[in-house]
């Protein structure tokens, strides 16, 4: 089986728009969550989020392109261009059909949907922008990134809500292993901090409402006082490459991508399976595929959304699979700091895992004040820890019951 490695990382997040700044912020336990400013949140039960207020699309593309694309696509372009630069990948020197792009989004062009719906209702159908459809469709980020890079290989978007980016990375791994491409740019992007996005998630009672006066404390996965997730926006992409291709061009692998598993709870549209069976299946499956013992795993970057159910059932799934090793695992939810980037979550978290494997530094889960008896594992509370890790897993679960796990290994030649 072909070995696949990560050779580049690009991201735009509230905690930094390059991997080093981002990872240092995580290690320092910084929160990127503030009061919402993109719209007046006064009437909303949740008034906090991780907004990219200093993002300027024209740093990454001509103003005309910026206008024609939704914010989610702008983030994706910024992340992909950085990842390619980080990987020192010269696309022009490659056969363009051997480089593909799979950048998903949980929702796509939410802001475009809102703006143009308003125009439709207020001004009529002739005033709806011709860029409405190309801006809002979820596959456009992959399409535009391909145009920017001249990448003509496999190209589409995966949509599985909050598991989107993990599936995108995992399916890209498959594509590389089948030999359909040598390089894949994989990840996710999300820009759903809009009035409709917040109203919708608030109506579901999925978002935190009790920490509007203390935004940094709102995302508190596994803590007893957790009361819902906090949304973030941004994007991350990884350059994935067959090891042979990476070595042949003199690239330095950052870590190895070993295995991926996907499953569905087949239980409820939004509630996770109370036994965590779908996630447990994925966790066991990645261990089986990589042929390693559960005890070899040192770190899990949890889905850890800060909702009552997710954190409880995710803990249960981990215990089911890891048994007596579960209490020895280092587990953290970086969503405690980044907020939940929905379709981009799996990619920024995979980026964090790459750095954990490289450095042996483990980011904390912040806002751990009062333990919850149903969440009784080692969530690396409040402060980063140091422990070399050879194997690590990233979990992400989406509405719809969709689960994805990816297993990565510290790079050894």
């Amino acid at each position, binding site marked *: 089986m072909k070995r696949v490695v990560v050779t580049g990382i690009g991201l735009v997040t509230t905690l930094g728009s390059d991997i080093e700044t981002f990872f240092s912020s995580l290690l320092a336990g910084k929160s990127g969550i503030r009061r919402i400013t993109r719209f007046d949140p006064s009437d909303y039960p949740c008034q906090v989020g991780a907004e990219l207020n200093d993002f300027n699309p024209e740093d990454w593309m*001509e*103003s*005309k*392109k*910026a*206008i*024609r694309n939704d914010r989610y696509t702008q983030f994706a372009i910024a992340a992909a261009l950085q990842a390619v630069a980080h990987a020192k990948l010269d696309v022009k020197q490659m056969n363009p059909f051997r480089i593909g792009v799979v950048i998903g989004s949980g929702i796509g062009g939410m802001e475009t949907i809102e703006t143009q719906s308003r125009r439709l209702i207020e001004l009529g159908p*002739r*005033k709806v*922008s*011709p*860029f409405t459809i*190309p801006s809002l469709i979820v596959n456009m980020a992959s399409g535009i990134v391909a145009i920017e890079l001249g990448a003509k290989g496999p190209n589409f978007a995966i949509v599985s809500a909050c598991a989107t980016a993990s599936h995108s990375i995992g399916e890209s791994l498959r594509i590389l292993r089948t030999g359909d491409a040598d390089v894949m740019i994989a990840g996710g992007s999300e820009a759903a901090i809009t009035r409709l996005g917040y109203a919708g998630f608030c109506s579901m009672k999925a978002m935190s409402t009790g920490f509007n006066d203390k935004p940094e404390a709102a995302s508190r996965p596994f803590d007893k006082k957790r009361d819902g997730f906090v949304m973030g926006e941004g994007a991350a992409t990884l350059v994935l490459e067959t090891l042979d291709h990476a070595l042949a061009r003199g690239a330095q692998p950052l870590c190895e991508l070993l295995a991926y598993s996907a499953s569905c709870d087949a239980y409820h549209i939004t509630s996770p399976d109370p036994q965590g069976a779908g996630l447990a299946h994925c966790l066991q499956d990645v261990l089986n595929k990589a042929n390693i013992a559960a005890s070899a795993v040192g770190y899990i970057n949890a889905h850890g959304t800060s909702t009552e159910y997710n954190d409880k059932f995710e803990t249960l799934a981990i215990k089911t699979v890891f048994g007596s090793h579960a209490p020895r695992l280092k587990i953290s939810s970086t969503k405690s700091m980044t907020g939940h980037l929905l379709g981009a979550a799996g990619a920024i978290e995979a980026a964090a895992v790459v750095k954990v494997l490289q450095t042996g530094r483990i980011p904390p889960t912040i806002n751990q004040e009062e333990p919850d008896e149903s969440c009784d594992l080692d969530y690396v509370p409040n402060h980063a820890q140091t422990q070399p890790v050879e194997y690590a897993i990233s979990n992400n679960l989406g509405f719809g019951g969709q689960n994805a796990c990816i297993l990565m290994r510290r790079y050894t030649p």
Partner: protein
Amino acid sequence: MSNQSIQERVIQIISNQLGRKMEDIKLESSFTGDLDADSLDLVELVMAFENEFSAEIGEDGIPEEDSEKLRTVQDVIHYVEKRMKDRSAKG
């Protein structure tokens, strides 16, 4: 309203929509040839002209048979002027 100001307003819109510097937009510049506009840009440009000149040309906007003939910056300026004249003649 003077010709100068219609011209300035047209050029300002084109500059915003197509991401071009004002000084790069000449009267004889063609949208698709010189300014790199594609078919979607053209639709949005016409909407922007309709919006900007709704007081001068009326709320009905620019019919498709007219918009198809607007190929250069000068065409748009002439078109707006003509529509204004037609309206004042009727008025």
